Every structure is written in C-alpha cells, then in structure tokens.
C-alpha cells in the first residue's frame, strides 16, 4: 500500500510540478502548484510526518498560494503571448536540471538501503523539540515574520517617504 501510494503521489506531484513551469497562464501555474503541494502533503503522510503534512496544506495551499492568486488577479496578468521559442534558454534550463539529476544519481547509487525507523512526527513530538532544543531559532523565526510584516506594509505604501 505504502509503495503504490508513493508512486502515485510522486508521479502526480512531478507532473503537476512540470505543468507549473509549462503553463502560460499564471493562474494555471498557481493552481498546479496547489495540486503539487497537496500531493507533497500526501508524501509527508507516507513519511509519518503528520504535522508537516497539515502545515503544508494549511500554510502553503491555504495561505501562501491564495496570496499568489490574489496578486495574479490583482495585477490582472493575462496569459503570456506565445513567445518565440528561445532554444538557448530552454536548452540551458534542461541541461542544468539534467546535470543536477546526474549528480544526485551518483550520490544515491551507493547509498546503503536501510529500512525506515519508527518515529512519528506528531504535533506533540515536533512541538517538544521546537520548544526545547530549537527555542532560540523558533523565537528568531517569529522575529523574522514580524520583520516581514513590517516590510510588506512599508513596501505596499503608495508613496515612500
């Protein structure tokens, strides 16, 4: 069951990832990214990372991508014109991606095949770690969010003084 679901989730996720970068309409891109996020959450569940799966949906699909959609609609972006097919950029992108895949394959090839160890990423376990060992980074992250809020408010003022 785990294996079949893994293949289903990962293939579906990669397909929607591909469609994110190939769709000409930004709204399509954003919606395919939402779909990819949801399948990613499925993979997280397979990895027993329940908390992460929920956070993935709640933060990415529920908030971040809505923000993307909001901005796309706000700016009223129409679908891009069918651009002259720039072979150089396209080829460059594929070559870089392929080179990266080859490197990863080298790394993965002689990796020992170990079975999964039974830790479940429940909210309680992750939270315990967050508030003990990683307390300082946690506080810094909250500061970062505050800075982001202030920065965004400043950026979106019409006239910067």
């Amino acid at each position: 069951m785990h294996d079949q679901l893994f293949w289903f989730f990962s293939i579906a996720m990669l397909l929607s990832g591909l469609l994110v970068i190939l769709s000409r309409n930004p709204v399509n891109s954003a919606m395919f990214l939402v779909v990819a996020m949801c399948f990613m959450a499925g993979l997280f569940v397979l990895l027993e990372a329940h908390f992460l799966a929920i956070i993935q949906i709640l933060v990415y699909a529920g908030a971040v991508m809505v923000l993307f959609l909001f901005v796309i609609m706000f700016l009223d972006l129409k679908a891009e014109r069918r651009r002259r097919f720039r072979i150089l950029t396209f080829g460059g992108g594929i070559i870089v991606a392929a080179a990266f895949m080859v490197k990863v394959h080298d790394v993965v090839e002689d990796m020992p095949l170990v079975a999964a160890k039974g830790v479940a990423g429940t909210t309680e376990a992750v939270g315990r770690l967050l508030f003990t060992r990683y307390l300082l980074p946690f506080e810094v992250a909250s500061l970062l969010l505050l800075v982001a809020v202030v920065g965004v408010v400043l950026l979106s003022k019409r006239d910067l003084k």
Partner: protein
Amino acid sequence: MDPILIHLIKIVGVVGVLLFICAYIVLAERRICAFIQDRLGPNRVGIPLWIRKDGSAIQIGARWALGQPIIDALKAIFKEDFVPGHVNKFYFWLGPMLVMAPALMVWAAIPFGSTLCGVPMIIADVNVGILLVFALASLGVYGIVLGGWASNSKYPFLGGIRGSAQLISYELCLGLSVIPLFMQVGSLRLTEVVRWQTEHLWLVCYPWNWLPAIIYVASSFAETNRAPFDLPEAEQELAGGYNTEYSSMKFAMFFLAEYANMITASALMVVLFLGGWHLPFVPVSGGIAVGVAHICIFLAKVCALALVFIWVRWTVPRVRYDQLMGLGWKVFLPLALAGVLITGLAIVAGWSPS
C-alpha cells in the same frame, strides 16, 4: 462487520444528514427572517402524501412549508444552466465544486457522537484533529476566488478579491482563538477535547475561555461569509458578489456550501466550547439508546447554534470593508493573543483542572 463498510456507512450517513440539515436550515432561515421582518415567509408547500384526481394534493406541514426544500432543489436542478460566453469555462465549473468539497470533507475529523455498538462516531480520529479541520477549511477560499475570477466581470471579480483577503485574515483569528482550549486539554484530537469536557466542565464555563469564544464566533461569521461580514457577496454593493454570474445548480452549490460551512462552524463551536455530545445527567457511556441520544444531543446543539447564526444575520447591519479588516487585524488578532496569554496564566496559577 468489515471496517471499510462501516466507514462507508458513516461517510454516507454524515453527508446525507449534513445535506438534509442544510436544506432545512435554508427553510428555517427564510421563516425566521420573515418573522424578524414581520412577514409570513414560505407557507404553501407541504410534503405531498396523495394527489387527487383534480390535481390538488393532500399534504402535511404546508403551514410551515415543510416541502419547500424539495421544491427549491427541483427548481435548482431543472433551471437552465446558463454559462456566459465571456467566462473561463474550466475554472467557472471548478469554483462551485471547490467551495462545496472542503465544506463536506471537514466532517471527517469532527466527532458527532460517542460510540454506537462499539463503533466510534467519528470518521477519522487523527492525531492532528483540529489542524486537519482548519487545513481543509482553508481550501474553501479557492472556490470563491476562482469563481469570482473566472466569471470575468467586474462585480464577481471584486467579490473574489474581497473574499480571498477576508478569509485569509480571519483564518488567523480563528486559529489563534482555539489555541487556549488545546493548552488546557493537552491534545489536538477533537475526541480528546470532548472527553476532557465530559470529565470536567464544558470549556465555555471557564471565564478565561469567554474571550476566545467570542472571537471564535465572530471570526466564523466572517469565515462563512455571513452577515454582518458578508462583504464578498454583498447584494447592494456587488450585485451578489462572486456568484453573480452563476445560475441553476452551480449557484445552488455556492448557496448550499455557505450553509454547510455554517453548520460546520456551529459543529466545531459545539465540540470545542459546548461539550460536543455531552449533556449533564445523560450517561457518558451505555448501550445503543445512549449512543443515539448522544448523536441527537450533538445535532440539537448544532442546530441551536445555526439558529444563532441566522438570528445575527437578520439583526446586525453589514460592516464596511475597511472596518472588517481593521476589526480582524487590529482588534481580534491582539485579543486572541491576549487570550492565549491569559489562559497560560490561568494554567500556571492552577485554576484550570487537568
């Protein structure tokens, strides 16, 4: 019995009961708003029992229009499904579905009873409980945004934009307002929350939970697009908002989803603050009769809260959009954070039983 079969029965049962309640809540809303505005409201169609030769029918409950939901549903199905030429077809179709689906999916994690014949009355008792509910509910915003955008005309578009900003903002208040409860209960499982309340008092009985409860109720008005916060579909300003271009069954989906969301919000309120299926003097565990009684208690509480939603909608005037956002960000958010702090102090001081 086969566990998959049990799950299927539970899912069909929950969705069926939910849609049934939705249909009759719509009728209740029409009757109550008529009462508040000193009108009669729907009072013609009963449930037909027998049709005579001359075409007249013997019907029951015509006085309270008990047959009205059936007639409304038939009307929605058989009306012409008109799709304007300027819309983005795919997203125009997708919008109503994306609003409806999360509203129903959320019920997977809500406990609607204790146990019946040894089967827990919840579809999926996951350890992330409330987070799952919020995560699924947060997906409902896509339907509104995409529906408004795909309609490709001015007012639906404005409704969609308003909807996205409002729903994201109030999700924050909603999430923050329930944190104090889980600090007291110590688990995110909604079944645990109810169990805790059966052992102690209902969570709403503790004074430090009153502020979160008020914020929760007000935020859920905003989350379900109901007056006084129904800005995305304000008729007088936006001619119906994001659903202006929709007709027949697609419109009915938007309409039903609003009521389904309302019922879901009431159900969560019942589970979180009002003890779920628990009622004093009703045994916490027992045979089939007790199990059925628990489900009935839960449904009664949910319907009572849904009536509060209706009552508020027809009593309070709509707020302005900047007031809405100001209220969310400058009042509710700090107050919700203060609620977390106050509850923390109450727990440290040992006032909260646990």
